[in-house]
């Protein structure tokens, strides 16, 4: 079974930056077979692809408070297991292990980065937009980090909510 995105062409949407209520609101669950959800999935993929260095984008980041996100970490030096470009609905982490600190930033918080502990291996349960098929994704390394970051967005959390300490946020040095 492949989870790769194989949907319609989407539209590039503007990215919302903090502070914004939608970024701090728990997203609603979606019906993965709803054509509007499939269109939004396509839009997330299109928007992710045009943003330099963007490896994931969640619906709240384009102003829609629902549990839907796109990920593609292909080619990233820290990636190990790869599932290509994919979009998940209503994703939940069901297993997490190998916790490791790393510095991360977010397109919706463009001027800061922060040290955040994330699991280096996760199992995620979700459904695919379009088919509505249930999937379980086992991944690690950078793809695991990206999934946790996007699932957080769908729960109304930013990396700022998980920063390791008072002196663990930084002005972003280089904007990709």
């Amino acid at each position, binding site marked *: 079974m492949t989870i790769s995105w194989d949907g319609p062409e989407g539209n590039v949407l503007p990215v919302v930056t903090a502070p914004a209520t939608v970024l701090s609101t728990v997203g609603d669950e979606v019906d993965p077979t709803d054509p509007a959800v499939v269109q939004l999935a396509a839009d997330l993929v299109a928007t992710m692809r045009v943003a330099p260095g963007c490896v994931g984008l969640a619906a709240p980041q384009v102003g829609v408070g629902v549990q839907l996100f796109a990920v593609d970490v292909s080619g990233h030096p820290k990636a190990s297991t790869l599932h290509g470009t994919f979009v998940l609905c209503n994703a939940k982490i069901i297993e997490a292990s190998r916790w490791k600190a790393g*510095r991360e*930033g977010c397109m919706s918080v463009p001027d800061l980065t922060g040290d955040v502990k994330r699991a280096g291996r996760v199992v995620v349960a979700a459904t695919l937009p379009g088919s509505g098929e249930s999937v379980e994704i086992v991944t690690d390394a950078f793809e695991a980090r990206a999934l946790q970051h996007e699932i957080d967005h769908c729960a109304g959390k930013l990396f700022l909510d998980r920063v390791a300490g008072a002196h663990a946020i930084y002005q972003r040095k280089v904007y990709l």
Partner: protein
Amino acid sequence: MHELAITVIGPDRTGIVADVAEALAGVGANLTDSTMTRLRGHFTMTLICTGPTPAEASAALESLTGVVTEVREVAPEEDALAEGEPFVVSVHGADRLGIVAAVTRVVAGAGGNITDLSTRLTGTLYVIIAEVDLPGGSADELAERLAVAAAELGVEVTLRRAESEIL
């Protein structure tokens, strides 16, 4: 609209941050960037705020007892994103005079701009952690120069890239 740089230093106690912030809020000072830590038990807070005149801010802080405060008007600085590559320098070893001076001079000599720095002395162990923006491609040479300086000081030094992943 005035931009003020304020430092507050004194014995640490519960509630002192709230007292400082409240005193400044009372004269309409809007805290922008600030940092606070305890240095050898001393409360130390450095902040930038906008709003009141230096005299108004100073008067507001006079209600705090037992602390040394300084209020100074500063020209607004552009909070520009640095062009360099972000690195972290870690140094640890037996305390002796001049470790910070020697290490940071080497960093400056390579064109590295230190953007955050913490040093701690605990027992005889001295530790420096510095965030540094380096000119592109200068890291290898700096690492070699730091190794030479560290050997002279008898301390350990590492230079590593502060990788941040944008998600």
